[in-house]
Structure formats: C-alpha cells, structure tokens
C-alpha cells in the first residue's frame, strides 16, 4: 500500500512539474501563436542553472556557488530568460518559420554543449552531488517527497493563477490580438515585436522554473534529460489538453504523462525480450500519432480555448 502511495506521489510530482512547463508553452503557443521547437532548451537552462548555482563545488567545473535554494532556482529561471531573450530578439521580427527553426536549433546546440563542455555542466556525466534543500531536516524519505510535492503543487497553482490573470489582463488581450491579426494590432498602435518578445521570455522563464524543480527533484541533471523527446511530450500535452486553455494544459500534462508511463510499463512488461530495444520507437510513434491525430480530428484539444468578449456593447 505504501508502495502504491509513494509511486503516486512520485508520479504526481513529475506530472505537476511538467504541467508547469506546459503552462509556459501555452502562453507562447496557445495565447500568442509563437512556435517553440526547443522547449527542452529552456527547461534545461533552468535545470542546469539551478544546480550550477546551488550545488557543491566540483573539480574543474563551473559552479559550486552554494547559493541558498530560492536564489539558485531564480538564477536558473534567469538563465532561461537570457537564452529566450537572445533567440527572441533575433527571430521575432521575422516570419514565423525563423522562430521555429531557431528554437529547434537552440535545443540541439544546448544538448550538444552540455554533452561536450566538461567545465560547464560536467559533460556526459552531468551534475551530481546536489544537496536538496531541507534534506538535513527531513531526510530522503517519504516525508520529504510529500513536502516536495506540496511545494510543486503550490508553484503549479501560483503559475496557473499568474497566467490566468495575465491572460485576462489588457496584456493578454494584446497577445490574442497579435495572434489573430498582426496588422490590425499594429494599426492600433501596438508593437507586435515587443509584446511577442515579452510573452516568449515569460513563457521560457516558466519552463525554466519547471526545469529547476525537475533537477531539484532528482538532485541530478545530465544531457539525457535534455533530449528533444521532452519537447515532443510537452507539445503533445498542450495539443491534447487544448492550446489557449490553461486548465487544458494541466489536464493534458497529467493525461499524456500517465499514458507515457503506462505505455512504457506495458511495453517493458509484455513485449518479448528481443523487442525491448524497440520500445522507445513504439512510444515515439505513439506520441507522433497523438500529435498528428489531434491536429486532424480535434485541433482545439479536449478543453478548447474559451473566447471571451471583454467589453460588450
């Protein structure tokens, strides 16, 4: 029984962390129509940033600043912001293909850099030895995991409330205006490039937060954690849940993560031994089918965006 509960706690923690990242993507794609092909790069920037700033010193490696945890997490989010700002400022005034390609490129380059730069992120071995906050007080056991889950849930709710307020604010209306008709928005004196950049950076910071929490949870990050797979999973979550709807984004995160872990479990349990090598391929095909299938048959997702008229008459 305790095994089931601790698994549920583990599952909910990871799903909630991913839900935060999906919320970040929803601000970019769902509300502003910005395609981010490199979600994992901003997620990874948060993860690596947090561990480098908050971790213990390592031989011949950047980091070991041993900052107190909240500062380290904020630093990780700032790293994600910086990266998003650089990519955004170069691409957001061009046609949308450029953003798609550059963000995809930034993810490839990020993973490549982390795999090779021993001095920066520990190379292929990643960063180890991170001391989780409050570990000395609570230990590594069940109580710690419950408390961590609570913190993640609180952050998820805060992110959700922040985004709900943001989207309902005049700024949120500007985002939708730009998404629907850029020329019209510009004729009303709005500056699409600035507003897009603000939305892109904000969304990426939220992904950075998710990445920082993820790395804290495992107390470890390596290039294996920043593979493109994660980007695809996060998209699938948003598309299934419903782009433009924050509640849908959270729902999608839990559904897809459940489907992913369940399919992984079923394949490892029931697939013949010689096919085990190919379970990854099966799962990717499933994710691909989910994305394409949703776009073809239910592009609005399970919970469609609710369009509101903010001032009638």
């Amino acid at each position: 029984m305790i095994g089931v509960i601790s698994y549920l706690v583990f599952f909910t923690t990871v799903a909630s962390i991913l839900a935060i990242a999906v919320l970040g993507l929803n601000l970019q794609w769902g509300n502003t129509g910005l395609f981010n092909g490199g979600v994992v790069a901003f997620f990874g920037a948060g993860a690596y940033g947090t561990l480098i700033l908050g971790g213990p010193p390592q031989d011949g490696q950047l980091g070991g600043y041993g900052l107190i945890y909240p500062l380290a997490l904020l630093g990780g989010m700032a790293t994600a912001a910086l990266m998003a700002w650089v990519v955004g400022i170069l691409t957001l005034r061009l046609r949308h293909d450029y953003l798609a390609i550059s963000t995809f490129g930034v993810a490839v380059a990020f993973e490549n850099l982390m795999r090779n730069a021993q001095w920066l992120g520990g190379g292929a071995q990643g960063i180890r030895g991170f001391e989780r906050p409050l570990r000395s007080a609570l230990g590594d056991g069940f109580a710690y995991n419950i408390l961590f889950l609570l913190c993640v849930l609180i952050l998820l709710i805060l992110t959700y409330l922040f985004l709900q307020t943001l989207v309902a604010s005049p700024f949120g209306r500007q985002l939708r205006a730009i998404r629907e008709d850029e020329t019209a928005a510009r004729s009303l004196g709005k500056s699409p490039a600035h507003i897009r950049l603000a939305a892109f950076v904000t969304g990426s910071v939220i992904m950075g937060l998710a990445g920082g929490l993820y790395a804290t949870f495992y107390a470890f990050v390596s290039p294996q954690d920043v593979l493109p797979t994660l980007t695809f999973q996060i998209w699938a979550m948003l598309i299934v849940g419903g782009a433009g709807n924050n509640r849908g984004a959270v729902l999608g995160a839990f559904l897809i993560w459940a489907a992913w872990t369940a399919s992984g479990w079923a394949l490892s349990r029931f697939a013949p031994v010689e096919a085990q090598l190919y379970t990854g391929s099966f799962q990717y095909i499933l994710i691909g089918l989910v994305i394409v299938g949703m776009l073809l048959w239910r592009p609005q997702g399970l919970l469609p965006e609710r369009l509101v008229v903010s001032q009638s008459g």
Partner: protein
Amino acid sequence: MIQHLLDGILVGAILSLGATGLTMVMHMLRFANFSHAELLSIGAYSALVFDQLFKNLLPVMATQIVPLSMTCALVLAMVAAIGITGASAVLFDKLIFRRVREKGEELSMVFASFGLALIIRNAIGLIFGLQTKLYSQDIVFATVLSRDPLILVKPDQLATLAITLMIILILHLILSRTTFGYALRAVAENPSLAQVNGINLQRMIIIVWVLGGTLAALAGVFYGLNNQINPVIGRDLVLPIFAATIVGGIGSIYGALLGGFVVGIAANLAVMILPSGYSPSVPFLLILLVLLMRPNGLFGEERA
C-alpha cells in the same frame, strides 16, 4: 585545410539538394517542414531495398561501375527510390498537411510535420532495425590527389558532386526557361494572383512535393553512399538543411543551393577551431550569425 574544404563541398552538395526541395515547399506552403529530412531517409532506405532486389533478380547488375562502389543495381534503385519518395511526399500532403491546411490552421502544420517526422523516423527504425547499413560492403580506396598536403578523395564523392551539379543545372534551366518554371515562381509569390492567371494551384503543390521528394531521395542515397544508412539520418540532417535555407534566405532556390555549400564547408572548417564534438552545433551558430548580419539570408526577400 584543403581536405576539409573538399569534404565540406561534398557534404554541401548533399545539403543543397535537401535544402532546395525544402525551401520550395516552405515558400509555397509557408511552414517550416520538419519532416523534410525524413524524406532523405525514405529515399536512402528504399534505394537499399531495391538495390538488394535488383541484385538478387539479375546478378549481372551487382557488378560495380569501376571505379565507383556504385552498381548498376544501385543506379536503377535510385530511380525507384525517387518514385517512392516523391509518392510518399504527395501522400503525406494528402493525408496530413492538406487537411490541416484546409482547417485554416497554418501554424499547426509545423506541429504536424514534427509529429510526422517522429512517426516516419521510428517506423523506419522498427522496419529496418536501429543498426547502420551500407549499400556495398566492399571497401573503396580513396584516391590520393596530392601527398603534401595529403588530400584524399573517393571516386563516389566526385560522382556525387558531378551529379549534383548536373541536377542543379537542369533545375536552373527548368526554372528560368520553361513556362512551368514561371508558374512555379508565380505561385510562390502570390498564390491567388497565380490562380487568376489560370495556374492550377493543387497541381502545382503536388509537383512541388514531387520535386522536393526527388531531390531528397537523391540526397539521401548520396548521403548513404558516402556515409552510412541509419534511421536517424533525418534527425542528424534536419538542422543543417534548415540552416542552408536560412543562409540562402527562405524561399530562394538559388539561395538554398548556395546555402547548402556554405553550411557544408563551414561545418567541416569548424573542425579546425572547435573540438569535433561540437560540430552538431555549427549549423545553429551559422543561423545566429546570418540572423544577426543579414536576417533575410543571402538571396531572400522580406516577407511577413
């Protein structure tokens, strides 16, 4: 230095073929097609299948065309691969892209192309296995062009380059001399105006996919011939090919041709400054550089 330059030109030729098809599709349908590089995989693998088939049917065809490692069977297989790849490109458009397009969700097509790429790449892995394959097990020795500095070149590489240049010439003649070429450019410039002038848009889209598939199949076979064939060809080539289209300016066919060579050469020359582990990042650095200095590429025009 010269060896790197030479290798870069050869890689560049392959990227050019891929980027040309991609830029045409992107220009006409206005979306970044992340599944284009998978067409190269389809081309490479279908050539592999037909190559085996022809060799088994007619053992005579297994003889090599000296001094290449290419056999008559592979040349015929290439033709078959072009057919299959072109047909799959049209099929994917019919099954997925056209439907998403007609729903008016233009931006969603990028997602759809990513999803499709995942499906194709992993389906190929499931069918053919994850291990690498080769068209020919025979070792072809490189010819020494000069001893000091040491410059080596394989006959296959030279043949690849020659065929690519020939295809570029043919493409150029078609685009600049035929009515079809004008129609193609007209549709890309302004689809509605082109339709008013009696150009069949649906047919042009199909032709563009077939052309893109043809070039991709050739690029895939050449890649397989000069390197090796594995299911992640698409994953490895998608960024360099995109970089080539951005360097040339999205939508510019001549730009993409040149961009391919620029990316190929830059990636090979970069090995002299950066440790080789970083070479997958080179296309991204090139993209950043181009966006900083000449956002619309070498030949691209501004378009919102």
